[in-house]
């Protein structure tokens, strides 16, 4: 289970010689259960990526707590990383290595025995339909192929928890379907899946639980039906617009640009 309570994170942004404080995350709280797919749904700059980076122990929160499988991300980051698989928005591969070598490198870093690694990679290659890619160097891979390798790399140690940052960005239909198939498979095996997105269709098709985040705060959470009911809307898109962007549907100007953080 992944639990986040009262999370806050700000950055110092330097633009044109002036420094300003950007509040990327102000107050985010939610719970992602095992055996369920939870979506962090929000407009660009809502604070989704920052929240996921805190969960991945790559950023330290200013306030609030976050725990993965009962381990606090600030107190025991190594234990958190050990049971977490992360598909971040940075999916860089080593282009002089083959897909198999890229994945095996991570397996070795996580001390997965070689036999187990080979077995799991064969299974992942089958699920992601990437068998013929395995022994090719990743130089020149399409974004879909890169995503598949990065996902296999994130799952090679069979983590109990998986977080994915906008996983379908830049993917074609075939790759998106392969990804959905894999995520459902993992959920059915009792894994805890948390992913960020701003694509309604994806959320409707995949998610059991939706957490709407806007302007760095949790606005609402529940199933798609719960959210529609709460917003008095016909479909999820309407519900999202009403809940996240206000009744007028206009995005407030002060949206925190977490993804633009540099």
């Amino acid at each position, binding site marked *: 289970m992944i639990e986040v309570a009262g999370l806050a994170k700000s950055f110092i942004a330097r633009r044109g010689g002036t420094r300003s404080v950007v509040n990327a995350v102000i107050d985010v709280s939610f719970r992602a259960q095992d055996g369920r797919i939870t979506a962090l749904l929000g407009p660009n700059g809502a604070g989704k990526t920052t929240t996921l980076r805190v969960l991945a122990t*790559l950023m330290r929160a200013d306030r609030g707590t976050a725990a993965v499988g009962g381990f606090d991300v600030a107190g025991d980051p*190594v234990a958190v*990383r*050990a049971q977490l698989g992360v598909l*971040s928005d940075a999916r860089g591969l080593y282009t002089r290595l083959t897909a198999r070598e890229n994945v095996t490198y991570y397996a070795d870093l996580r001390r997965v025995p070689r036999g187990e690694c080979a077995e799991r990679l064969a299974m992942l290659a089958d699920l992601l339909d990437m068998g013929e890619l395995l022994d090719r160097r990743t130089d020149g891979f399409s974004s879909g192929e890169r995503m598949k390798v990065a996902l296999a790399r994130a799952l090679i140690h069979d983590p109990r928890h998986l977080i994915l940052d906008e996983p379908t960005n830049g993917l074609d239909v075939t790759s998106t379907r392969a990804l959905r198939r894999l995520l459902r498979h993992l959920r059915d095996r009792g894994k805890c899946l948390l992913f960020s997105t701003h694509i309604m269709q994806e959320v409707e098709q995949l998610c059991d639980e939706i957490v709407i985040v806007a302007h760095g705060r949790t606005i609402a959470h529940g199933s798609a039906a719960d959210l529609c009911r709460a917003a008095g809307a016909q479909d999820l898109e309407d519900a999202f617009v009403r809940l996240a962007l206000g009744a007028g549907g206009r995005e407030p100007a002060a949206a925190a640009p977490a993804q633009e953080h540099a």
Partner: protein
Amino acid sequence: MTISWTIFRKELTDAVRDRRTWTIALVISLLSGPVVFLLLSNFVSGIEEKVAKREVVIDHPEYAPTLVNFLQRAGATIVPAPAGYREQLRSGSLGNAVLVPPADFERKLERGEQVEVQAVFDDSHEKAQAVVRSSIRLLAGFNREVGVQRLYARGVSPGVLAPLEVREVSLAPNQARGAQLLFVVPWAALMVAVFGALSVAIDVTAGERERGSLEPLLGNPLSTGALVLGKWGVVMTYSLAIVVLTMAGFMVSMRLITNETMAALMQLEWREVAIFVALLLPFAALMAAVNMLAATFGRTYKEAQTYVSYIAMGVQFSAIVPVFLTVRDAPWQWFVPAVSQLTVLMRALRGDPIGPMDLLIPGAVCVGAAAFCLALQARLLERETIVFARS
């Protein structure tokens, strides 16, 4: 340690498959020896040959048969000055002095008058300097001989004019004379340690950031210290391999290319090679760590190249400091990397004895500084601004 080993193996595979980097490194290390030795030996032998041949260029030698006779007795070969010799001197194609006796040379000499003989030269050409000096020395010899004969003719002892008889007894070993010039050899070896593994150092740091693989890598349960150690291991291995190859190139060049003159000037046998390697190994280890640290600040490969080029430039300049120092082998030189290596290496080539402290102190300074750079880099990789700042 297992984690560092895993990282080391992966980075080594990655670096070995980067054929471009690999080829450049190989070419640099294998060619630097032959190139340096070829240039040096050409330079040295050019001077030596002319001095040894004692070619003396005279404009109208027929004006001064007595002088020609003296020069020939002194073992010199007389070469009549070519037409337009002044131009040739300026351009450097004639690397000697041209002696110009007047038409009435013999008449004046006979009368015991002073004869003006011009020695025309252009010593802005370095190669010409030794030869010009040699020609002028020969004229001084003629002066002495004729002067002594005239004194004897007047019944005066030559000792009256020369109360001191100066006999030069040089205690400098053979190598010392050449070592001034031969600083190029240790300097080239030092530069190979600086530049050899630069591209690998950038690739494992800024390259990792540029291709977006640093963030997922740090999501693994590993310490940044282990990560830095594994990467450093590869950069250092690469660097050391290049240093060893370069030294092998030096040895082969010394045997094949070098002429006897150079061999007499410089000592580069197994003992010297061992000293080179013992000094360059810790230096290469330090340069690997320094270059990696500088490149860590680069968001892209290109940006990192700018940072490491500042370092390389600094090392290049500081390494030649000992060559121009008036105070030789001052204690502080032991503690400054690059300066200490060059100082000790030059002493080794000069044939001076090298004690254990000459190797231990520079080595320890390098190892300590490398450890500091690595620790700093491990800290940097925990910073959000380094991990997430992208171009």
